[in-house]
């Protein structure tokens, strides 16, 4: 298993990476960080970039900082760092819960959050949680920095709102209000460990215990991760009985064009989206109430 021949570049800064992206855009170019999504497809020759720009050595792109408004996570932060970081555990335990379910420990030691979101694998874990958390992507291009709300970021199969000459530099996760609980429920592919279906829920209760706000993110079901808007609408403002949650999460697949492949039929995915959404909401509600 050898990739097609390519030219390797090592970028010293984000600016240099952007220049290299522009320079080699026509010949075919990819950024590489942890390489755990890109290298397998290159070895299978499903991707054959003529140029590879390694951004793994760029200073300042890794690391987690916590502020009053939330977390800023550098693009090169590894899954293992997210899994074990105390600030993440305190401010966004959902991220740690998801990170712990990515691949195995060797993969988590190398793979990065920036690489995962930029690759936009429809079965990756993070997109579901980032949608539920209302995160935003910090990206840098030739004209400087901009932010893209996560709801606008994932647009299709392996496709994001990034321009070809933009680099994801960080992911920002807003601070969660009080009385908020989160949960990620995943059915893993038995071979690859990727999500057949993964559902993340972020639920905020009001003082009476009703649903003040809710966001549900779904990955693995369609060609890109999406919010389960119909289910959210059916829960927002409601008193969260089992019946209400069941009725609402039975609508979690609405609007998703379900994948149908050797790993799961569309019908099975539908039932998993609904069932896992129910489990995620129930768990999130329980955690919200426990605080």
């Amino acid at each position, binding site marked *: *298993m*050898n990739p*097609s*021949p390519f030219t390797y570049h090592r970028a010293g800064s984000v600016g240099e990476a952007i220049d290299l992206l522009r320079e080699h855009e026509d010949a075919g170019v990819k950024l590489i960080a942890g390489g755990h999504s890109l290298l*397998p497809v290159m070895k*299978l*020759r499903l991707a054959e970039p003529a140029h590879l720009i390694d951004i793994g050595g760029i200073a300042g792109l890794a690391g987690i900082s916590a502020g009053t408004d939330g977390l800023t996570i550098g693009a090169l932060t590894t899954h293992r760092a997210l899994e074990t970081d105390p600030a993440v555990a305190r401010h966004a335990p959902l991220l740690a819960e998801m990170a712990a379910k990515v691949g195995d420990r060797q993969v988590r030691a190398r793979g990065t959050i920036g690489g995962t979101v930029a690759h936009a694998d429809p079965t990756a874990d993070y997109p579901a949680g980032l949608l539920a958390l209302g995160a935003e992507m910090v990206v840098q291009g030739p004209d400087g920095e901009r932010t893209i709300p996560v709801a606008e970021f994932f647009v299709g199969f392996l496709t994001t709102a990034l321009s070809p000459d933009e680099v994801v530099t960080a992911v920002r996760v807003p601070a969660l209000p009080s009385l908020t609980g989160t949960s990620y429920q995943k*059915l893993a*592919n*038995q*071979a*690859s460990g990727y999500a057949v279906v993964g559902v993340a829920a972020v639920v905020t209760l009001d003082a009476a215990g009703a649903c003040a706000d809710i966001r549900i993110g779904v990955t693995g079901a369609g060609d890109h991760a999406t919010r389960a808007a119909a289910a959210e609408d059916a829960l927002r403002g409601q008193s969260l009985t089992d019946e209400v949650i069941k009725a609402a999460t039975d609508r979690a697949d609405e609007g998703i064009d379900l994948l149908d492949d*050797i*790993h*799961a*039929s569309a019908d*099975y995915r539908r*039932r*998993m989206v609904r*069932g*896992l959404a129910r*489990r995620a909401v129930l768990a999130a509600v329980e955690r919200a109430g426990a605080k």
Partner: protein
Amino acid sequence: MSAPVAIGTRTKRLDAPQKLNGQERFTADLKLPGLLHARVVGSAYAHAMVKGVIKDAALAIPGVVAVLTAADLPIAPKADGTPGENPLVEDEAVFSGQPIALVLATSDAAAEDGVGAVEVDYDPLPALMRMSEAMAEGAPMVRLKTSEVSDEEASMHNADAAQDSGEERETLPPNVSNSIHFSRGDVAAGFAASDAVVELSFTSQEVHQGYLETQVAMATVEPLGDLRVYTSTQAAFYCRTRVAETVGVPLHRVDVVPMPVGGGFGGKFVLIEPLVAAAAVAVGRPVLLQFNRMEDFLAANPAPGCEITLKVGATKDGTITALESRMTFESGALGGSPLQIAAILMGGYYRFPNLEIRGYEVLTNRSKMGAYRAPGAQQGTLAIESVIDELARELGMDPMAFRLQNCVVEGDARPNGNAWPRIGLRQTLEALEAHPAWQGREEARAKGRGVGIAVGGWPGGVEPATAVCRLDADGKMTVVLGSVDLNGTNTTFSQIAAETFGLGAEDITVKTASTDSAPYAGGTGGSKVTYTVGPAVQKAAEDARQQILSIAAEHLEAAAEDLEIIDGAIRVKGVPGVSVSLREIASMSMTVGSRFEPVYGKGSSAITESAPGFAVHLAEVEVDELTGETKVVRYVAAQDVGYAINPASVEGQIHGGVAQGIGWALYEGMHYDDSGQLLTATLMDYALPKAEYVPPIETILVHVPSEHGPYGAKGVGEPPSIPGAAAVANAIRDLTGLRMTDIPIRPERLAAALDAAETARTASAAD
């Protein structure tokens, strides 16, 4: 004999250090001057005529030295003058990925670039992927050109396959390459006399052996024209024959060097060696081919899928009256399958006074089918052990008691009429019955778990073997033999030899030699190496011991029977201080002018009666009612091993077999689309039983000694991989009430069944 010192003790594997340190050198680690790396151009179609291969663009790539097609290989005609079997497609490709051309380059990467640049001109033909389609009246042929089907390899795995069923040939449907028929008594009368009958249909998919090291071979032409083949084969002598026949050279001009095997499980007798050898001869340079994982999925030799319909009846008192079955086994595009042994085992674990089994091997446009650890046994066992379990429920009997009432013992007949020799099935059932996991099954059920049991048996294999044992100058002993060590058998042999000499296992070196110098042994398969090569080692060591004692007797001026070997020295019993060391014996027999002959013991065995081994497994499972995921949370494996020369090694064999059985049950299956493209060609798509899927395994060793094996040992490799699928299916049945008959029992399959059952329950509640 005095109390054993070396045998029966847990002994570390002699090859553990280099394996644990990453220092073992496998075939692909070897470097030869002028080595060319080969990569395969595989057929893009499951069935097509190949009209041409255009090499120019590939040959223009820097590093690419040659592109070989069938016409470029030096393939010798067969003994009868007909054309020899070409390992590359000559004109008709019959499965997707079948090697059409070989690109040779100075690096693996250049060879792979070359593969991408080779153009093949195809004329596609219809592909037949389902047995039912292939057998239908008027079906097109899976391959237009037919050749004889060889079952040569099957006979190396079990003694029963070596016999013809002796039946008249019925008129067969299209694309059926072989059929079997076993019959006993009157099944109609048997079913008429029964009080309960269970009939179920089972399917299983192709399962890959999943070895860590993919198929690999390197061949080089020595200066005087001899061929040397380094390979990860399980069967060096068989490999040598096949290579010599392919390229048309005498046997003695081919040396097969059996390299450490990174997992074989039956899939590495011979596959790519004739191709690699022919390529090396064609270009006159060393050639290395190691399949990448995808090539190994596409073009190796996995276990076949099958369909089995099985009906068994019994009377109220729990006596089985009849068995009837129809079996179809995939035999790929090239033919051959373990159908016969599957039938013999399926109808062989219990006493069936009336029995009727018909079976068909069906060609489809899939790769060659091969042996995978207990070939045929998993599929046949899933059927019989599921039906027996269900029948016990129908009769309201305990499944353990029902099995004990009907299980075969020495003298009972197998479907082919052969009587079982001394076996330990009953003792193994009793051992598991007494285990806390079975006794405490109600507690497990109270915790929301299901408990299932299943039997698995293997007839064992036999083949003559020779070993030699020599004394070296340092006073240590070296055993030289021809059997490949797949799983610690050389360590077991060091224990056998050490026992003979009263030495520790670490004082004995065991070498598997290449075919130029090794004494004969058969392939490592069929659970026969310890059983058949072990006695040869034992005799060779005893012969060497007698030679040593005779030298010592003369030297010490004592009678040989008054001597004993202790701690590397020969002493006169009861006379302290009178001794001669093995080192001195070596010196006295291997220096200029010595008066004694060098010590070189020889031992051979030609056992013709196999020692069947039985395992009985218990699986405890939990099921996620939403996702259908099954988790095996406890596993107990009881097995009659005859005698455990190295208990650590025997338990290791059981652990590995259990993991593979769980793979059969829940995870593994190759999946093709209707046009014959393999959809599970990477480990991202094909699920192996990972460490997290396998619980701690409790083992129970049962000792019913074999008549001919060393110290009563039996082959232990095959049995532990057999009952897993049925034990897990029975545990799922116990927990959920659902009888799952298609393996692997993937989450979606079980979730759909759970959902259907829930819907039916709701509907009936509403009535």
